[in-house]
């Protein structure tokens, strides 16, 4: 009798082991889960790294005083271009210059006030020229320059990529794989054995949880080692947030898979579910850029909740109370999705 019980217990283990083997024997799955997020964070981290301030480009209209103005600007660390008036205006239009300087009395600055670079250039150029002409500060000032981990783009990006990864591995790793199993008639074959259906489904969820414990250290460790992305809050809370997120997307993956008969349908459904969150849920840029009318909808998306909670814990050292609403939302999505999926699941 004991061997019977052991046989039974091991079927969950066998199902999970089989899934694990199939994953690691599929190079593309390994790449999309582990390699791709790393490459993406590396590429975006480099593209959006904090660069030293660039000099403003001032097109100085040729004429009396132009040479002196150019000299003063160069001395102040800006970049003057001495051009004919028409050429100077053309340079402004195509963005080669930030501001056009027409020397004379009064001196004229031509620029587009909607361009931030231009407004800045106008101030810097005027300051440099006025100083060269003898202006003095009323009060002495000093500057302290700060560049701290936590406030950079990469610090925003890494938690978002973790969230994105949790979503896509849940949806593809569960939704797609189950439908593939159904399409191959393997599901039908397995259901014709004494296999417990609950164990079949549980093996997928278990596998996601196991994977998360691999994905999290890889992604966060990479961010920490390469870009010094900090983890300011509690690691336990971060893991809890990630697990709850993984559970929510496991549920949605199962829901997508519960009736689809072929992988084309499943792929379409998965993209349909993921695309809005991919765009709206603040993976690559803050969701607050979207209009106010969209905000309630965006806040209700599970990926928004996951990303917000991950960021709050990592960057702002938030505690359970601060991420409570997000945790509740994720738990609700998980519970609802599992309940519906189990009800509608098509086994044969």
């Amino acid at each position, binding site marked *: 009798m004991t061997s*019977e019980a052991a*046989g*039974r217990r*091991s*079927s969950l*283990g*066998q*199902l999970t082991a*089989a899934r694990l*083997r*199939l994953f690691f*024997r*599929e190079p593309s799955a390994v790449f999309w889960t582990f390699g791709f997020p790393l490459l993406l964070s590396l590429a975006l981290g480099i593209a959006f790294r904090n660069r030293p301030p660039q000099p403003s480009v001032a097109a100085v209209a040729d004429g009396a005083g132009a040479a002196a103005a150019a000299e003063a600007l160069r001395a102040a660390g800006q970049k003057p271009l001495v051009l004919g008036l028409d050429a100077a205006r053309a340079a402004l239009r195509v963005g080669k210059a930030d501001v056009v300087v027409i020397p004379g009395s009064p001196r004229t600055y031509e620029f587009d006030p909607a361009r931030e670079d231009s407004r800045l250039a106008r101030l810097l150029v005027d300051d440099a020229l006025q100083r060269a002409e003898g202006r003095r500060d009323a009060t002495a000032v000093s500057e302290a320059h700060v560049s701290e981990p936590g406030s950079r783009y990469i610090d925003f990006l890494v938690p978002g990529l973790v969230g994105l990864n949790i979503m896509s591995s849940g949806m593809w790793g569960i939704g797609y794989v189950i439908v593939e199993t159904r399409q*191959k*008639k*393997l599901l*039908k*074959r*397995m*259901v*014709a*054995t*004494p*296999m417990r259906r609950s164990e079949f489904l549980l093996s997928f969820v278990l596998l996601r949880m196991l994977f998360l414990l691999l994905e999290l250290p890889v992604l966060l460790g990479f961010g920490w080692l390469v870009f010094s992305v900090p983890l300011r809050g509690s690691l336990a809370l971060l893991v809890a947030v990630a697990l709850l997120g993984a559970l929510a997307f496991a549920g949605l993956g199962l829901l997508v898979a519960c009736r689809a008969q072929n992988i084309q349908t499943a792929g379409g459904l998965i993209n349909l579910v993921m695309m809005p969150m991919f765009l709206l849920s603040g993976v690559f840029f803050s969701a607050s850029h979207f209009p106010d009318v969209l905000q309630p909808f965006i806040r209700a998306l599970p990926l928004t909740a996951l990303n917000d909670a991950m960021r709050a814990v990592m960057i702002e050292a938030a505690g359970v109370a601060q991420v409570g609403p997000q945790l509740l939302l994720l738990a609700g999505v998980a519970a609802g999705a599992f309940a519906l999926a189990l009800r509608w699941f098509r086994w*044969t």
Partner: protein
Amino acid sequence: MGDLAIRCRGLTRRYGEVVAVDGLDLEVRRGECFGLLGPNGAGKTTTLEVLEGILPPGDGEVEVLGRSWSDSGPWLRERIGITLQETRLPDKLAVREVLALFRSFYRQGRTVDEVIRLVSLEEKARAWYEKLSGGQKQRLAVACALVGDPELLFLDEPTTGLDPQSRRQLWEVIGAMRAEGRTVLLTTHYMDEAERLCDRVAVVDHGKVIALGTPRELIERVVGHEVVEFAAPDAGARLEESRLQALPGVRAVRRRNGSYALTVERVHLTVPALLQHLDEVKAPLENLVTHTATLEDVFVTLTGRRLRD
């Protein structure tokens, strides 16, 4: 426990407007190898899947090993083994890994090594499924059916599409199961397979059993001993079926284009008379063949169609 492994009365299954199984009756005795024969679309697979508890029965009574699926599902699952007509196992799992997985679903059964030996896949035990030949894949599918040590085996077209050597290897496996006293229910549209493996066969067409018996019984009852086939394409209307029917020993006449098939009791009585008659009506003979009647002839006689049209 009765002596029936399967009892099924008035089984009816519809898919929308299409009636796949139309009041089918079937009794399979314990320990026999029983064949369901019929063309594609005859309802064999649907019948099998109802008996396997995969499809719910529509109308009718179904008892498997003396129990019904609604009362004893888990009990039955432990005691049957099946192969589906098409199953693709995971490409990147090894033979041994697939079998260990299926073994884990059953409380009791054979060891993985035992079933690998049974289907002679020892040399492929560590090979991935995608690297196996068609015959090896099918033997692995059968091994998955055997790993729970089933009393009753359902095999849906176990040898379709296989080369002759793979078919013979599978026949040996099935024969061994039968020799151990297990019940086997298989579908096939290979008549030689049915004649060789099955104790009894049922011919199924349009969702009904149209003939039942041992292969020999069926052949003798429906067709007779021998078949004489000949072609006389230039004979035209001069060759009348009623005249052929009247020749000595002729049981039935079938005509297809310019070809005729006579089922006869004694070839040596019929053939001289046939040649004489052809000579009389000036129908030049092309091609004359005689062979012992087979289940294929049974099917053609009963339905007017060939099995694998």
